[in-house]
């Protein structure tokens, strides 16, 4: 808002009020995160005092002897989210490209509806489906196939019960596909038609148009869509805990069970007695917040390096 508008306070009062209102709302989000961080910090101060930084690198989680460490949970959270992204990103972006660039109109609307329907499935339902349908199927069909084709990698070796890191990654992928697809679709739609026409005019094929004029132009926005999906993946709790096997361990094999930060908090908080135990669980929450922030910062840096300053999704 500039000085001129300030002088004519009468008719522009609405503008000023609007500006302040939106500012307050934006600050409220910031305040909320700060408050959550503060509360987690306060709740975890006993554990912080007792274990210090050691908490982050220790693999011990022993409520009987009151010794706690977060490393296996951090590992599980990061790995399951990474698997989810590896699966979900290509599917989501390809779907979004198909929907905006290629799909005939009569296909478009039903497909969009289905994707949005997928987003509406509650995670506990997805988890139940995971236990009774997905896990047995993976165990009988996909995992043996992976073992025969990619079994030379340590990632696909060792015993397999179906409940494992890979199953968790797959179920999280299913949960974040709708959000990444929807946001990507909006972003691709906002790519100006001129951009495409210019590429066509240069004699580009449809694939080249999509690659150069659309995807490259929308890179930053698509990256944002992926980050949104990642945020959801890191915090996903119910469905993950139902299929991951819940063992706090760090193992190379994706067929081995794991455990995530969000899951252990949800599982153990109810019956956590004493002082140090709940405090350690609070600290896991703090760690989860920290992991989310760090991953986001890392993603932003990655974006700056790869997307470069020249590409801006603006007119």
């Amino acid at each position, binding site marked *: 808002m500039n000085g001129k508008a300030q002088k004519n306070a009468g008719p522009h009062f609405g503008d000023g009020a609007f500006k302040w209102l939106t500012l307050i709302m934006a600050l409220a989000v910031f305040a909320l995160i700060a408050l959550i961080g503060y509360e987690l910090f306060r709740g975890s101060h006993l554990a912080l005092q007792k274990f210090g930084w050691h908490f982050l690198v220790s693999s011990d989680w022993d409520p009987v002897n009151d010794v706690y460490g977060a490393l296996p949970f951090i590992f599980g959270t990061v790995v399951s989210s990474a698997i989810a992204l590896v699966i979900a990103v290509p599917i989501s972006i390809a779907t979004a490209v198909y929907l905006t660039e290629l799909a005939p109109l009569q296909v478009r609307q039903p497909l969009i509806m289905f994707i949005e329907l997928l987003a509406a499935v509650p995670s506990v339902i997805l988890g139940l489906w995971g236990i009774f349908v997905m896990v047995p199927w993976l165990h009988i069909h996909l995992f043996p196939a992976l073992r025969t084709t990619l079994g030379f990698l340590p990632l696909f070796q060792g015993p397999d019960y179906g409940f494992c890191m890979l199953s968790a990654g797959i179920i999280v992928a299913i949960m974040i596909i709708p959000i990444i697809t929807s946001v990507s679709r909006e972003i691709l739609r906002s790519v100006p038609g001129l951009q495409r026409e210019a590429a066509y005019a240069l004699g580009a094929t449809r694939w080249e148009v999509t690659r150069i004029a659309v995807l490259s132009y929308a890179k930053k926005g698509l990256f944002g869509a992926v980050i949104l999906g990642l945020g959801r993946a890191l915090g996903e709790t119910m469905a993950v805990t*139902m299929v991951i096997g819940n063992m706090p*361990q760090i193992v190379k094999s994706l067929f081995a069970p794991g455990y995530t930060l969000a899951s252990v908090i949800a599982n153990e908080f109810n019956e956590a007695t004493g002082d140090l135990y709940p405090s350690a669980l609070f600290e896991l929450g703090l760690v989860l917040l920290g992991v989310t922030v760090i991953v986001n910062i890392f993603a932003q840096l990655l974006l700056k390096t790869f997307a470069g300053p020249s590409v801006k999704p603006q007119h």
Partner: protein
Amino acid sequence: MKKIILSVLGGAALLAAQANAATINVTGAGSTFDYPAFTKWFEAYKKVDPGVEINYQSIGSGGGIKNLTSQTVDFGASDAPMKDEAMAAAPGKILHIPIVAGGVAVIYNLPDSPKLNLDGDTLANIYLGNITKWNDPKIAALNPGVSLPDLAIVPVHRADGSGTSFIFTDYLSSVNPAWADSVGKGSSVKWPAGIGLAAKGSEGVAGQVKQVSGGIGYAELAYADQNKIPFANMKNSSGNFISPAPDSVSAALATAKIPDDFRFSMVNAPGDKAYPISGASWVLVYQHPKNAERGQKLVAFLKWAVTDGQKLSSQLDYAPLPDEVQQRELKLLETIK
């Protein structure tokens, strides 16, 4: 006409006033294990004493103890007795009232679902990862005539903190010194690394056991019973193989050594018919309640619950408290003032 309306209104007002004056709200919080019993009791107790309304939040034993200590509820409920330090931290003396008892069934998934016999030492070694195959000589020795497959055993435990885990690990600790040393007992413990799986809730454990061939797990008796999952007979301290049932849990309760403060463990209790993996759940109350009126109502309810209420809870696969225990509890309840 006017008269009728007035009298109706007056009557309604009178009724409302009466209800307001008479209804006393008593609140409690804690164990999820007790929740089905409480729900059934509250419903039935309305007929016994319409003047009291009891609310219970099943937020978990930990939360129950916390709320009782901060005096935000009139009673707590816990699946494990409170530790001395926790009791010392409370603003008054807390009494333990055993309210329900239950058995934990050992469930499994084997081809053709044979009926199995197991003992505590074998079970501990399975969960410690020392016994890894179903055709292990130790299991075979307990099950003559049963053809056991050459199949990996996948032990499943509860991922969430739970009273069921407490009873189970309490039992393993009492029968296997290696377990007691390396793992111990608790509603959450550090399970031996790299062995088996864990699931949330009894339904999760049962689900994983059902899905994984060779799986073994543990769940409240009621759960295993209603879901038709095969469960093992457990060898008790007299050497008999006992099937988990309300009767065999009651038998364990009758022979368990119960001290005067009622903080006891009833796993591996003596007696021919006692089922070894059994445990109690407690209501926790202050001996001198902050609010005398609510305290009185609560005591009256508890007296009813540990006697008449037991008939109702046994319909839900809880084991009824034996007469002798009931009498001792009534005496303890007398001391609340």
